[in-house]
């Protein structure tokens, strides 16, 4: 054997050595984590996701402005680019953007805003701005980023026709859009584990009944069903109530996939010797399910849940875009996209499509993390 081969082999052996003391007492989750980290794209996506959820949590702080703040005279302002140096007047380091110029068409009297390269506006970190309550609790008035002079606002992603800062609105929309996935998936999880568990553990007639029911639900085209249900939410309901109604509607279909995953795992595990030996150890049924079976595929559940979130987000976006989801005072990515819903706005104010970019980034990140999770879920193979 070549010495190189030996070394390579030794490396492998260390990973799998039966008596390697460090990994011997390391639990399952440690191994899953180690395997997940090897998945570069998934790791990066996980970091992006953490950032997105941090933004969702601290939206008021991250956004320079509130969701409803209108800037008179800044309707349909295009996005601006931040530069780190300013050379217009000597040399300065900081955060800078150009100002705006307004052209008025004499005939149509339509105002068009453009970036004015000759003027410079300064941005700052942790600047004073509108007052808000951080996470709904702590009153504060500092913003992560914002114009140093409130009279000279900067719109990183432009404004809409009412002069509202799109960047701020996307940041605020993150909260609703990203949490609707989580809440919906939590509801799916309860239904999925319950029905999948019953189906897989008991088998037989219980299993057949639940499976037929799932097939029935899956055979209904989901978008029309959602639309019918969403359209039947009374308009008198407040934003919070309709938000939860929408999540419940989305999870009506979302749980079926999870139920299948859970059922398959239970069916396979039921026959495992270690489950049987737990039964012979006089463990009660619930304990067997909870302590001996569920932990064996909690990572699979997490993977399935992660993969279910983007579906929920997309569904909310679609419903809101079609006008039967969340309604105007609530800000979500879907609601924002609905406002971009005209050919004219596509041509004259294309930046209004930016919420779509946010959706794509979030959905891709969730999918990559879910895939990475699924691959890492069986670290012993």
């Amino acid at each position, binding site marked *: 054997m070549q010495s190189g081969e030996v070394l390579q082999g030794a490396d492998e052996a260390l990973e799998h050595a039966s008596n390697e003391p460090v990994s*011997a007492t390391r639990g399952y989750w440690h191994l899953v984590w180690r395997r997940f980290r090897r998945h570069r794209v998934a790791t990066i996506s996980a970091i992006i996701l953490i950032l997105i959820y941090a933004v969702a949590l601290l939206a008021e702080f991250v956004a320079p402005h509130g969701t409803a703040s209108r800037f008179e005279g800044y309707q349909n302002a295009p996005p601006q680019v931040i530069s780190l140096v300013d050379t217009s007047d000597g040399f300065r380091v900081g955060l800078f953007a150009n100002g705006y110029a307004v052209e008025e068409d004499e005939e149509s009297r339509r105002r068009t805003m453009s970036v004015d390269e000759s003027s410079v506006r300064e941005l700052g970190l942790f600047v004073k701005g509108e007052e808000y309550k951080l996470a709904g609790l702590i009153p504060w008035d500092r913003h992560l980023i914002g114009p140093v002079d409130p009279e000279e606002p900067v719109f990183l992603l432009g404004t809409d026709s009412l002069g509202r800062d799109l960047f701020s609105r996307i940041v605020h929309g993150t909260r609703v859009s990203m949490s609707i996935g989580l809440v919906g998936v939590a509801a799916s999880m309860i239904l999925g584990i319950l029905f999948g568990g019953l189906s897989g553990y008991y088998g037989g007639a219980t299993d057949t009944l639940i499976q037929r029911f799932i097939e029935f639900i899956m055979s209904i085209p989901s978008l029309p069903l959602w639309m019918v249900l969403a359209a039947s939410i009374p308009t008198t309901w407040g934003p919070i109530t309709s938000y939860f109604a929408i999540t419940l509607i989305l999870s009506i279909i979302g749980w079926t996939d999870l139920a299948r995953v859970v059922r398959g795992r239970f069916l396979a595990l039921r026959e495992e010797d270690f489950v049987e030996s737990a039964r012979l150890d006089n463990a009660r049924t619930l304990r067997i399910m909870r302590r001996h079976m569920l932990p064996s595929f909690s990572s699979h559940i997490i993977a399935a849940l992660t993969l279910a979130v983007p579906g929920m987000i997309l569904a909310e976006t679609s419903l809101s875009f079609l006008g039967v989801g969340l309604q105007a005072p609530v800000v979500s990515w879907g609601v924002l996209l609905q406002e971009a819903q005209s050919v004219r706005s596509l041509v004259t104010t294309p930046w209004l499509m930016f919420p779509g970019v946010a959706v794509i980034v979030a959905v891709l990140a969730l999918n990559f993390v879910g895939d990475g999770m699924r691959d890492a879920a069986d670290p012993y193979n």
Partner: protein
Amino acid sequence: MSELEDQKNLLEVRDLRMHFTRRSGMFRRHSTTVRAVDGVSFDMSEGETLGLVGESGCGKTSVGRSLIRTYAPTGGQVNYRRSDGDQVDLATLPGKALRPYRRELRMIFQDPFSSLNPRMTVRDIIAEPLRNNRTAHRRKVDEKVVDLLQIVGLRADYLDRYPHAFSGGERQRIVIARALSLDPRLVIADEAVSALDVSVRAQILELLVDLQADHGLTYLFISHDLAVVRYMCDRVAVMYVGKIVEIGQTGTVYSRPRHPYTRALLDSVPEPDPTRRNLLTQEPLRGEVADPSDPPAGCSFNPRCPFAEEICRREEPELRTLDDGTQAACHFAEELNLASPGGRAGAERPMR
């Protein structure tokens, strides 16, 4: 039967049956009955080791599982003598009433990789039966676990390791520790060493023998390895297609089998000494094992038996006691002389 009654057997299995119904076809209209265990009777006295041998699929595991009631037998009795002397029939007890006996009858599984939960540490695995049965005070559980580890020859500092960090032999020691944790009386070892390396096998077998002596255990030792059975067992039962065809003292059965199937099984074991191995005299078992869902009429072994006669295809032979105490189920058990390989040398055929 008076002899059996005097001995106060730990276990008396009578006419045990385990038939599986398999449904197939559209709408599950067709059903076949697999007679995995079809009228098995035997006794086990306290402290003995009974071997159960036979080809794959003959129903050994089904017998073991019927005894510990992971299968619900479809017929017969499993009379178990409790430590207070009373007998209970485990075959018909409902699930709840079985709980106390699950502590006294324990199972060692074949595959030490699948029988340990990969998500639990050794400590939790061995403590699980103690906790479920509340046999040890909460604070004493850890002590007891350490004791058990030492008994099976594992170091106490392995406590917080996960199963994946152990070799097959070590895992089987953990399985044995778990089986011992509830002070069992009868241990059913189903192919307990088959999955292990040959070099580790002897160590585990020795451990089992030592434990038997220390704890007064009774073993039902299921195996298809005749050499291992000879080493381990006081008595041996040979199964063929759901039935016991021969049962007796290990030494007697090995030196003078009374059933042609036992002879064939012994002949199929390779001679350990290669200089004496003779492929010509070492006849492999002919033919296919009979289908347990459709066994041949008469003696199940008749299609493969070199001594089969007309009567073998017509009448099923009873298991009966012979002069040397061995029981065999063959019409010609008295006449055949199967002491030497091949069973030909002295085989006299009274009628031909």
